[in-house]
């Protein structure tokens, strides 16, 4: 059996980064919920920051970025973790998903793909950025977003407080839901770009005319 392919995207900027730490914990929790072999590819967007900016300017990805894009589109599932900046995903995080579609205008390339969303922030007051910004981004892209999104505030890395009910528990719940999606029906296959025969393109114009 082919190993399950997971791509883990971390948009953390510092090194070491709490965003990456959270990504790693989500990844291992997901592994624990799956009894098949899992192939994980970790993508640190920090390392692709200038490639992503160049892609914006030139409209094509560098070899390294192209490789990451292809792996992301071919993944069985994605774990996407971003720091929250100004009440939303970081610009780098959004830019990566903006250039994902360099070769096509088809915004459904992630259709049906399970995506676990997660974020870090300087205070727990940023946590709903996951629901108001990050979830809609993936909903727009037709991904299957895991119901539980995981936010980690600074206090979560310690014992938590009255409001935070344990990061570990939330990670476990999200990973469990994610694993169920991964185990479920096969992920929507990317359809290879097919050309509409020319006669059909001409005929389509004629039909429209008659209606």
């Amino acid at each position, binding site marked *: 059996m082919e190993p399950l392919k997971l791509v883990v995207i971390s948009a953390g900027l510092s090194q070491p980064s709490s965003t990456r730490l959270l990504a790693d914990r989500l990844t291992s929790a997901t592994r624990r919920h799956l009894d098949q072999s899992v192939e994980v590819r970790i993508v640190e967007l920090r390392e692709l920051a200038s490639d992503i900016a160049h892609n914006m*300017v*030139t*409209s*094509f990805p560098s070899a390294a970025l192209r490789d990451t894009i292809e792996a992301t589109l071919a993944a069985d599932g994605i774990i996407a973790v971003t720091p929250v900046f100004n009440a939303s995903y970081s610009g780098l995080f959004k830019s990566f998903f903006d250039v994902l579609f360099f070769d096509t205008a088809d915004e459904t390339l992630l259709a049906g793909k399970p995506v676990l969303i997660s974020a870090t922030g300087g205070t727990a007051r940023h946590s709903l950025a996951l629901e108001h910004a990050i979830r809609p981004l993936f909903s727009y892209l037709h991904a299957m977003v895991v119901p539980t999104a995981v936010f980690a505030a600074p206090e979560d890395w310690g014992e938590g407080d009255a409001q935070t009910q344990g990061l570990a528990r939330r990670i476990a719940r999200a990973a469990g839901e994610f694993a169920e999606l991964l185990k479920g029906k096969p992920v929507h296959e990317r359809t290879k770009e097919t*050309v*509409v025969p*020319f006669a059909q*393109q001409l005929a389509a114009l004629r039909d*429209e005319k008659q209606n």
Partner: protein
Amino acid sequence: MHFGIFTVGDVTPDPTNGTEPTEAERIKAMVTLALKAEEVGLDVFATGEHHNPPFVPSSPTTMLGYIAARTKTLLLSTSTTLITTNDPVKIAEDYAMLQHLADGRVDLMLGRGNTGPVYPWFGQDIRNGIPLAIENYALLHKLWREDIVDWKGKFRTPLQSFTSTPRPLDGVPPFVWHGSIRSPEIAEQAAYYGDGFFANNIFWPREHFVALINLYRERYAHYGHGTPEQAIVGLGGQVFMRKNSQDAVREFRPYFDNAPVYGHGPSLEEFTAETPLTVGSPQEVIDKTLTFAESFGHYQRQLFLMDHAGLPLKVVLEQMDLLGEQVVPVLRKEFAKNRPADVPDAPTHAQLVNTQLTNAK
């Protein structure tokens, strides 16, 4: 095989000193480059068509008509003629007229253009980009091949018993290339008609165009025009040369770094590694251009972008000397080697007239 230059016709300040040519200077410079192309032994000059600053060539047949009168052998073409926003009736007439004036030294490359705002300036809607390209060309194709046309379409007023004048020279329409950077639909259109396909590959990586050109070649064969290898392919190229490689890099870098299309992005080194851009000695340009046939198969037309990003006319003329004297003669010789006999040569009016005579017999 045809070698030539294509120009966008941008007015861009020279980033090294801020000098910006006037529109008049830029237009005259384009003409100078066309005359130079013939002088140094190139086959083709192609001008862009744009309707917004900082570009000057809004009226290609006016410019090409003037150049036709001042040249003898140069083939005049476009890069590209907007099939979406120009009325196909006017394209049929303008280019047939040019064909007569230039004794057949005319072909054209059709494109959709890439600037959304242009569409409404000519009464169109960018959302119809591809359907416009398809319907307008279907009409243009008919107007050049049928003396009396009855026609009804979606995007323009119907025609009844219409004859576009003048009729194409010798009854043979100008050869048409379909230019595209990313649309498989356009490759399919070119293949359907058995027309040429020009992949403007200068700003993008090779892999992308291999797929697009292979698609065109396969569909060309599918529609019965010949084998995939016989399809008519054109490619772009972009070069800056000096005798010594380091001098070329040093001189071109400020132009690269500030170029309107790719400036302020990747480094010159990264960009030359990924795209056809070559900055170096004439030998390096030869080596890189020869790899095109390995990637894309034997092809018929190679156009180079020489004048852009604010390069002064004097420098561009020096570049064209190098291109004509040191690069193209070697490329002609090298490309001719290993070229199978059944791969057709670049189409010309004389050759198309011949084919028509042969078919008539």
